[in-house]
């Protein structure tokens, strides 16, 4: 803790520590510190508070503007494909989104696209029952593509305006699983002319630098339109968000703040940056 508010070496050390400690990552942290040093000389900044303020500005810039869910403009059905690595919080996030969208007056349907993991279908069906949203599913170990196709048809014939597709967790390093995802994406693209309207990647806030590798690979293989960061009710800060948003140009759209169906909030860049230093 500094006695005066002058810009000293220990200020830079403290900033570096708090950024690295928040999982911002060494390369983004280095970039930020260099940028701030440049601004101190360019703008003749005098105090630690000014540097802190500048840091928050830089962080907000990396995140980009806040961006909400993108709905279909052409077809009457909006399709949201939810993807991410194992255990990140996809299924729970889908339940939360479905609840929120139903509350907002949408006719939501869910597709149980994880046909592999034990009781994955049961889990989504239980959520569907709780929030009174229909779930389309087939038997465990059936082809996920077939379930998705089924769900697209059901959503269309039922007049649902939002279909959210749950997929099995998959590590981005697994070739066959990423190929399976590409196939699911193609099925949606063929069925709905401008779909999927959202390719949402769910990332656990407690993840370290691997988050960037995950996001890059998912973006590369099928593209991303948004990110949801879950488990921000933990002590983790999700600092990888800056590198992900900046590197891939993909907005963070929602955050998960707990295990209940209401624990989903739209992403607010200002709040997220402020929470980093809380």
């Amino acid at each position, binding site marked *: 803790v500094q006695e005066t508010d002058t810009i000293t070496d220990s200020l830079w050390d403290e900033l570096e520590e708090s950024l690295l400690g928040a999982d911002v990552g060494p390369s983004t942290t280095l970039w930020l510190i260099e940028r701030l040093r440049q601004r101190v000389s360019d703008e003749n900044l005098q105090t630690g508070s000014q540097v802190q303020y500048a840091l928050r500005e830089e962080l907000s810039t990396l995140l980009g503007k806040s961006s909400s869910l993108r709905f279909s403009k052409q077809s009457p059905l909006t399709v949201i494909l939810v993807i991410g690595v194992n255990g990140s919080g996809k299924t729970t996030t889908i339940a939360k989104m479905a609840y929120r969208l139903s509350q907002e007056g949408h006719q939501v349907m869910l597709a149980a696209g994880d046909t592999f993991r034990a009781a994955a279908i049961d889990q989504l069906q239980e959520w569907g029952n709780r929030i009174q949203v229909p779930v389309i599913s087939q038997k465990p170990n059936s082809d996920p593509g077939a379930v998705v196709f089924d769900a697209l048809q059901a959503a269309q014939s039922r007049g649902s305006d939002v279909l959210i597709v749950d997929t099995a967790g998959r590590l981005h390093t697994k070739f066959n699983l990423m190929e399976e995802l590409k196939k699911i994406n193609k099925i949606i693209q063929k069925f709905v002319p401008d779909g999927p309207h959202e390719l949402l990647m769910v990332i656990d806030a407690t993840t*370290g630098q691997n988050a960037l590798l995950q996001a890059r690979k998912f973006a590369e293989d099928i593209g991303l339109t948004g990110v949801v960061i879950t488990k921000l009710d933990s002590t983790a800060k999700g600092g990888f968000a800056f590198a992900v948003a900046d590197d891939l140009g993909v907005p963070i759209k929602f955050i998960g703040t707990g295990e209940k169906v209401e624990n989903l909030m739209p992403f607010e860049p200002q709040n997220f940056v402020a929470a980093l230093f809380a």
Partner: protein
Amino acid sequence: NLSKRLEGIFNNLGGQGRLTEEDVNAALREVRLALIEADVNLKVARQFVDRVKEKAIGADVMGSLSPAQQVLSIVNEELVEVLGGVEGDNKLNLGGTPPQIIMLVGLQGSGKTTTAAKLANYLRKQGQRPLLVAADMYRPAAVNQLKSLGRQLTIPVYSEAAGADPVEICVNSLDYAREQANTVVILDTAGRLNIDERMMNEVINIRDRLHPREVLLVADAMTGQEAVHVASDFNQAVSLTGMILTKMDGDARGGAALSIRTVTGVPVKFMGVGEKTDALEPFYPDRLASRILG
């Protein structure tokens, strides 16, 4: 990668017969960076590098090794020693009167339920008669998940109806295990945050009532800087006897393991290397060391 970066450093400094402090400082900056990129906790990385520094300065540059290789070998040796630790502490302790109890704890989604099934499979192959216990009464279909895995393996699962209390379920499972002559009981608990007092009290109660022989933290290999705080809180609450690092079949470097080991002394007992019930491997400190160093 690290060895290339270290070669680069030593190419810029004069070749000497001994490693000077300047050489070592330059090299260790790279090592510290590699560790942080690997998600090793900041303070742990700093402590580690300080320890290596003492061993590296003045070390003779061994005949066939370049200075970079020399530093790297000291770093690797130190890392393997910290991770590998005391002889035998990476093994499961299940000696004593059956049934012995293994309790799995950890954050949400880390892989506990899947790991419980893997452990049961592994122990059965070793001649044990395992009983799986479905003590997660919060997550939708959690009990079904464990039952489904139990069915796949034909390993019995003890569970109770909705509304039952997880602590009582665990207590009751022990009576059931005795009746059924199970030799090891594996408690699958709900994912929980280390800062959730009520949920942490639940696992404290389970531990106090059952005295599990092994209390294992199931931790995701991709966990970032918070690994240290999570592990210390769990350790303080239920005295961890080991950890299992899951999803090691991905490309996460796994630095969390070094952080957890350094701060809590808890040894890695197994690694999860896939989603199937046979995807459990014993822990190899040298493999994890090279992976963390990248």
